[in-house]
C-alpha cells in the first residue's frame, strides 16, 4: 500500500532521479575501470573495445550515462546544500534547484551530443 504515484511531489522525483542515476553509475563504473585497465594491458584488446564503444547503440548508452552523471552531480549538490547550508526559510528546501539540476544535465547532454555529431 504505497502512496500513489500521482501524489508524488518534486522532492520525491528528485530522490528517484538521484537513486536511479546513482545505481546506473555504480553499475557502469566497474566496466569503465575494466576498460581503462585494458588500456594499460594491451593494444589489441583495447582497440577491439574502442571499436565496440564506437557502435551507435553503445554511443547512445554512453550519452545516457553522461547525462545521468550530470543529473546525479546536480541533485547531489542540491542535497548537500539542503543538508548543510542554512535554509532560506522554514520550508525553503531549495526545490527550484531540482529544475536547475535537470537543466544542467540536459545542457551537458546537448554539448555531448554536439561533440559526437561533429565527430
Amino acid at each position: 500500500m504505497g502512496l500513489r504515484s500521482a501524489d508524488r511531489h518534486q522532492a520525491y522525483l528528485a530522490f528517484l532521479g538521484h537513486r536511479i542515476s546513482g545505481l546506473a553509475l555504480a553499475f557502469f563504473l566497474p566496466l569503465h575501470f575494466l576498460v581503462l585497465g585494458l588500456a594499460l594491458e594491451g593494444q589489441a584488446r583495447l582497440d577491439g573495445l574502442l571499436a565496440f564503444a564506437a557502435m551507435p547503440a553503445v554511443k547512445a548508452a554512453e550519452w545516457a550515462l553522461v547525462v545521468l552523471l550530470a543529473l546525479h552531480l546536480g541533485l547531489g549538490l542540491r542535497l548537500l546544500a539542503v543538508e548543510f547550508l542554512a535554509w532560506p526559510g522554514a520550508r525553503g528546501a531549495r526545490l527550484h534547484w531540482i529544475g536547475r539540476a535537470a537543466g544542467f544535465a540536459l545542457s551537458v547532454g546537448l554539448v555531448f551530443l554536439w561533440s559526437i555529431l561533429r565527430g
Partner: protein
Amino acid sequence: MNEVERTVPATEEGRSLTVRIWRGAQDGEFVSYAVPWRANQTVLDVVTEIQRRIEPALAYRFSCRVGVCGSCAMTVNGKPRWTCRSHVGHVHEDGVLTLEPLRNLPRIKDLVVDMSGFFDKWQQAGGRFSGTATRHDPPAAVDPYSRKRRLADAAIECINCGVCHAACDVVAWKPDYLGPAALNRAWTLVNDERHAGARDTLKRALADGGCCACHTQGGCMAHCPLGLSPTGSIAGLKRLALLEFFKGGR
C-alpha cells in the same frame, strides 16, 4: 474486489457521494457506502454520518474536529490527511472518496491504527523534556529572537498526528527509523535552552535509525497539515551530526 453497497437516501438535490472504506485489520476489504453529498462537509463528517446511519460497527478515531488534537488522520484518496480539516469538495475524485487507515502503522480495525510504536519512537528520540528549575524559581527568560528559539519555534507546533510518519518512505522501508515527527520533536528540544537533557537528546537523534537515515525526500514536509518542515529539522540535526563528527564526539 467484491464490494458491498450500503446506502443512505440522497439529499433533495439527489447527488450522492461514494465512500469506499477499508473494513478489517491487516486483512480486510473495501466496502462501498453511498451518502448524501452536501455542500459543506468534511471527510470526518462523512465517516461520522456512515457510522451513525449505516454502519454502527465502523471504527475510527477523532476528538477535537478542528485540527488541534491530531487523532483523526487517515489515508484519503491515497494521501495522509487530517480528515477533520479536509473539505470533501477539495479531496473527492469524481464523487468518490477512498478511505484507509494511516500508512506505516499496524492496523487495529477499520480506520484505526495502533499509534503506540509511533509514540515510543518519540521517547527513543529523546523527546521527553527534562527541566532543572522548580516551581520556586522564576520563569526562564528565553529571548524570543535568539537563533535557537527561532529554530525551535519553526518546529514547535506539531500535534503528533502521524501524517508525516505515514508519508515517509524511509519509515516504510526501515521499520526502526525514528521518523520525521520524532526527529522534529528532538530538534525542538536540542534548541530549547531550558532542556537539561539536550546532550542525551542529540545523542539519540544521531544514533542508528536516527536523522542520518533520512534521504531528504521531503514527503513529511509536503504533507504536514500545519506546514511544518520535519525535513528542515532533520537537516539541522544532520549538521549537528557533522559537527559532532569533527569534534570527535562520536
